[in-house]
């Protein structure tokens, strides 16, 4: 076994996707056109006001906030795979770290933009910095989300430095200015032991740092709700309930990304069935933990049925929102857990389908955490039109929400086209041996 020839093959395979082929151009055109169409909806909102959305005085938070929570949730997977699995030295996860980090960065960065779409006065965004009050959970949220985006970006960049050097030396990559850019971004990397030491140390510090920050972003996001005395939000377990739910969404997103990168970028030798199998098991684990928190969140108040809880829970279990509630719980959580227990289901294609169910379920789960609570305030809703009582999303707000999802796809696509989607160094190390170390 010559290590060098192996290295060359791996490098060639991993660098191959880095070119702007027709497929990429078509896909990007599609994304950009749909993005432009959806952004037109936002210009309408800017002109007419938030009234173009279905939210009104009673249900004043709707799809935008649900989408924001979903984005923050999904971005947490960067911390799970890079930091938790990385620090535990779980080898099989190493090639997936970059996918996880790209997803984390894209979702967290766009989450910041999503929240602007929910503002009545986006022109006053900077007031948060001029007049910010530390007592408000929104200010905490802005602080931690910004920090998380920054750390995620660094955690994507530092392990990339050696790969950037390799890219800059690869003559297949055109145009020339891109190679120049790689050269600059690789910060004079030569792979000396001293440089290795600095990079490894920096990565390690970031891996430790990102754990509390990631827990912070989603805990604080849950406090936006738990800090109020509304039925359904007034819960002490909202922090861990949201964090565990986040890992479910994040794992599903990584599985979907793995499937598409493996097929479109011809990486079947590197993102193997083994990886899908392990990710399937991981998804079962995090889903079980989430199921446990769901049991607590609904069974405990459901057992007592206190006056106002009863209204809220009856609506969820058997009322207007029952169909959505049970679909999310069954299709997005319980059935995936059961199906994924079978080895046959942990193959790429079934995993893709299950992950799609889990991810879509995760999005609606956020909606059903937010809307029914606002539909049932303490005092009766009277003397208002029907559309104030029940929330019905409009086409415009759906389009604006779609714009944010398309933007995430654009960021993920572009990043995966300009950097190797699997870390070259780690992949080579794994290809060169100790497969036995895989857990």
């Amino acid at each position, binding site marked *: 076994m010559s290590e060098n020839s192996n290295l060359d093959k791996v490098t060639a395979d991993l660098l191959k996707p880095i070119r702007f082929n027709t497929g990429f151009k078509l896909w990007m055109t599609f994304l950009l056109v749909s993005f432009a169409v959806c952004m037109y909806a936002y210009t309408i909102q800017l002109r007419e006001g938030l009234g173009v959305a279905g939210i009104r005085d009673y249900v004043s938070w709707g799809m935008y906030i649900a989408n924001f929570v979903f984005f923050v949730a999904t971005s947490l997977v960067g911390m799970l795979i890079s930091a938790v699995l990385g620090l535990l030295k779980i080898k099989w996860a190493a090639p997936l770290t970059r996918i996880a980090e790209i997803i984390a960065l894209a979702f967290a960065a766009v989450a910041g933009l999503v929240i602007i779409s929910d503002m009545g006065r986006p022109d*006053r965004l900077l007031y948060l910095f001029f*007049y910010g009050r530390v007592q408000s959970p929104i200010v905490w949220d802005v602080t931690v989300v910004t920090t998380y985006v920054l750390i995620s970006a660094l955690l994507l960049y530092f392990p990339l430095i050696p790969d950037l050097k390799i890219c800059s030396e690869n003559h297949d990559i055109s145009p020339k200015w891109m190679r120049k850019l790689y050269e600059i971004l690789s910060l004079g990397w030569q792979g000396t032991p001293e440089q290795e030491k600095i990079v490894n140390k920096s990565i390690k510090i970031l891996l430790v740092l990102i754990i509390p920050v990631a827990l912070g972003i989603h805990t604080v996001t849950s406090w936006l709700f738990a800090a109020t005395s509304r039925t359904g939000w007034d819960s002490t377990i909202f922090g861990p309930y949201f964090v565990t739910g986040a890992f479910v969404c994040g794992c599903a997103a990584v599985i979907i990304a793995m499937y598409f990168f493996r097929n479109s970028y011809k990486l079947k030798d590197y993102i193997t069935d083994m990886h899908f199998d392990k990710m399937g098991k991981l998804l079962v684990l995090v889903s079980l933990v989430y199921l446990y928190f769901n049991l607590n969140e609904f069974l405990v108040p459901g057992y007592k049925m206190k006056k106002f809880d009863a*209204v809220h829970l009856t609506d969820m279990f058997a009322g207007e929102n029952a169909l959505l509630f049970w679909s999310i719980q069954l299709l997005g959580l319980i059935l995936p857990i059961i199906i994924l227990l079978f080895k046959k289901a942990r193959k790429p294609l079934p995993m893709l389908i299950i992950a799609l169910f889990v991810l879509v379920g995760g999005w609606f789960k956020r909606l059903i955490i937010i809307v029914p609570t606002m539909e049932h305030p*303490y005092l009766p809703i009277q003397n208002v039109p029907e559309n104030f009582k029940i929330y019905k999303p409009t086409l415009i707000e759906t389009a604006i929400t779609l714009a944010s999802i398309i933007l995430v796809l654009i960021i993920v696509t572009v990043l995966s086209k300009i950097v190797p989607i699997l870390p070259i160094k780690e992949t080579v190390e794994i290809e060169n041996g100790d497969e036995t170390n895989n857990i």
Partner: protein
Amino acid sequence: MDNKEEKPKKKSRRDFIQQMSIVGAGTVLAGSAIFAGYSYQKKKKQGDRIKVLTANNELIEVDKNDIIKLSKSVPADLTEMQKRGREGIAGKRWVWVIDLSKCRNARKCMGACIGAHHLRPEQCHINVLKMEESEHTPPYYMPKPCQHCDNPPCVAVCPVDATFKRPDGPVLIDNERCIGCRFCIAACPYSARMFQWTSPLKEKEDEGKIYDVELNLPEKKGTITKCLMSADRLRESKLPYCVSACPNGVYYFGDENEDAVTNGTTKETVRLSKLLEENAGYRLMAELGTKPRVYYLPAKNKSYPFQDKDKPEAKESIKDNNI
């Protein structure tokens, strides 16, 4: 070799910057201390003593500088208006009493409110609700303005200090500051806040007026609007719009410091403590710890019967809210 030569040079530059920053910080600190001392002395020098009569009929002597002048003239610019709106009226603790036994759902209060603040009917700051606690308890009408809590959850969550608790009682909103995040709507357990989802109703009519925090006019698109206890009327020593409009004597309004409230219909002034004691006054959802400044007198011996035609909707709303 090069490295070795450079090292001492680098070190000395760092030292220099370090020393300079210490000197700089010291200068700034000393300067500000001197300035603070100077302005304190200056303020003190002007201090004449003045005799004033308090609400408890005591004659006391206070520093002239501690007295805030109540000017009737309207400030000419926005900053002055905002400042005045946040300071409030010194020495007052406005309090509101709503007698549920007198309300017959005339809704004159709602009309006055809509007119004063240029609101859409569905976004009136005060809402007369049809209430029924449980199946076999009698229904009644309950006017519900903002409760102007002394521990307001909406103010706690505001990220930019747009909504605030004024020393004299009301919870107000500065629409020139509000960023429209609607966290306060989520936090309010009394559903007392509304939002300008689109252009305000009388946008054209109000164009060019200086924004008044105490009246919330002109209304601003994309910001919160809410009950203000008619803070602009309080400045003119008048009762709130809704209170004066009531034909049935439902509302009492006054100053907790004076222990006196005036009925908006009869203009009769009574002792607050006595009124609450004799009628078993209570506060709405006091268990939430919000400490409302609005007291309710229970609907005992109602002056008017609950209209049967109102019943169906009342029942319906009860089904929604109280099982």
